[in-house]
């Protein structure tokens, strides 16, 4: 087993942790962090899996750079939305039970 493959398998483990966190956590910030963890796992798989044979392959590295910028943009957008949501409602999760006026168009 090569070192690169080890990176890819570490990426798989990160994906598992990230996915579990994403599905199980309710707190919006934690869920966002889980998304970032999942993203890092995917990037590790992408880079680790692709390095076979002679020398490093620059294409997946460039892809991951692009992917990171997209993930940063998505994270920034999510934080902006979460901050404003918290500012308006004081809530840190999307679960509202049966609170009136909070479902999609139910006010």
């Amino acid at each position, binding site marked *: 087993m090569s070192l690169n493959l080890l990176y*890819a398998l570490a990426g798989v483990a990160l*994906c598992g942790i990230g996915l579990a966190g*994403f599905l199980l956590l309710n707190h*919006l910030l934690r*869920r966002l962090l889980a*998304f970032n963890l*999942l*993203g890092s796992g*995917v990037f590790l*798989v*992408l880079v680790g*899996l*692709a390095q076979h044979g002679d020398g490093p*392959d620059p*294409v*997946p590295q460039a*892809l991951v750079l*692009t*992917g990171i910028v*997209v993930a940063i*943009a*998505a994270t920034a*957008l*999510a934080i902006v*939305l*979460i901050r*404003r*949501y918290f500012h*308006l*409602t004081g809530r840190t999760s*999307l679960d*509202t039970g049966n609170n009136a*006026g*909070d*479902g*999609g*168009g*139910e*006010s």
Partner: protein
Amino acid sequence: MSQWLIAGLLFTPLAWAALSLLLGFRQGRWLSWLGMAIQMAVSLALWFAVMEGGGFYYALGGWNAPLGIALRVDGLAVTFVLLTAAVGTACGLHAGVYLDADKPWQRYFWPLFWFLWAGLNGVWLGADLFNLYVSLELISLSAVGLVALGGEAAALRAALRYLFAALLGSLAYLLGVALFYGRFGTLSLAVIDQLLVGGEPALIVALLLMLAGLALKTALFPLHAWLPPAHGIARSPVSALLSGLVIKASFYIAARLWMELGDRLGSPWLAQGMGVLGAAAVIWGSWLAFCQPHLKQVVAYSSVAQIGYLFLLFPLTFAVAEPVSLLAQQGITLQVISHALAKAAMFLAAGNLILSVRSNRVKALAGVSHFLPFSLFSFGLAGVSLMGLPPTGGFAAKWLLLQASLASGQWWWVVVLLLGGVLAAAYVFRIYRASFLEVSNSDDFYHPPQSLEAIPMILALLALGLGLVAEPVLSVLALPFEVVAAEAVHP
């Protein structure tokens, strides 16, 4: 000639996004009218160019795939580019009048609108797995931005839900891309198609991941929970864009993957499973649409149901005879087009009705039939297409799917097609019934401008007329596929 058209097609939405960010809403509206006219003209010209000369690959930056990114310009792609131009222009024109120009945040509507358009074109033309991911993210983020615009708590909640679902779907897709790249060392879908021999387990996992991610982004039952809040709470022109076009983008990628790789990586249970989920979406979505107390929720759940039909593509094209598969593909293509037109018309008409009665509740529609018969008529016409009655595009689509089901011996999908039509009739007539109720003291309706009423009518008429011109549309679709397949892909 086509070279210039492609450059114009890619450049205009991005340039208009940048320019309109510098302007206010009103100036942005003037600018966007010009942009929509250009996009419409370029899309039409490209459509005719492909009809004449067949499809081709366009190497961006002069670098051919797999080193660079090539765009696949074929009949299906240009048809959807044209569809995007039509629905996008209608929504843009409607939004220019519908949205409140005095609100400071509305200036951001135009840049987001144009970025969304650029992403959609990127998906229709995409032939590179990673580029499709970036285009999908461009669509998701601008769509979420449009839903959240204005920043009310309920809208933010819906936007966050939408964002999380979209991000999870994209990452699942990207993980599949990583596996494909690890195995083949290329991102070009055409090259992968050539190199792929048999169903390796690793690649089956990759395809499953990608399909699951894309199904989440398309809001396939049971992953649909994010859609109704987002489409219900957004401004009506935005809802029309989201329901008409945005959810089709992820489905389009899933369909392209399935048509290229499904014969080797798919399995009967996967194909039937996707079909069953689609069927469940048709029944469950229609039933929930019938139960909703709010007008736009009815339309949004109707989208969940109509998306279900699209997933019949999987069972109807797997391990069946070539002519049957072609019938199914044509039926699904028509379903995508007719649903995009009809649903955009429905949301825009619903927006007019809401503007008029100043309430989103179905019950509040009582008496509106006297005051806004035109919008109500557009709503109904679009509904006729969703029900699948002749001569609409919805009917032509279902007729083709029906034939494909019978020809492949999968009669059970016929039940779904018929039941779905009946349920669609039920929720459309419920709106009609509510609006024809007589109430005595209802003279305080607001009258929206004529132009707002005309736009959904035009879209609904297009959906209606699609059934009459289905034959020529489909012939254009089928022709360039073969031309492209025969061409050598890369040097």
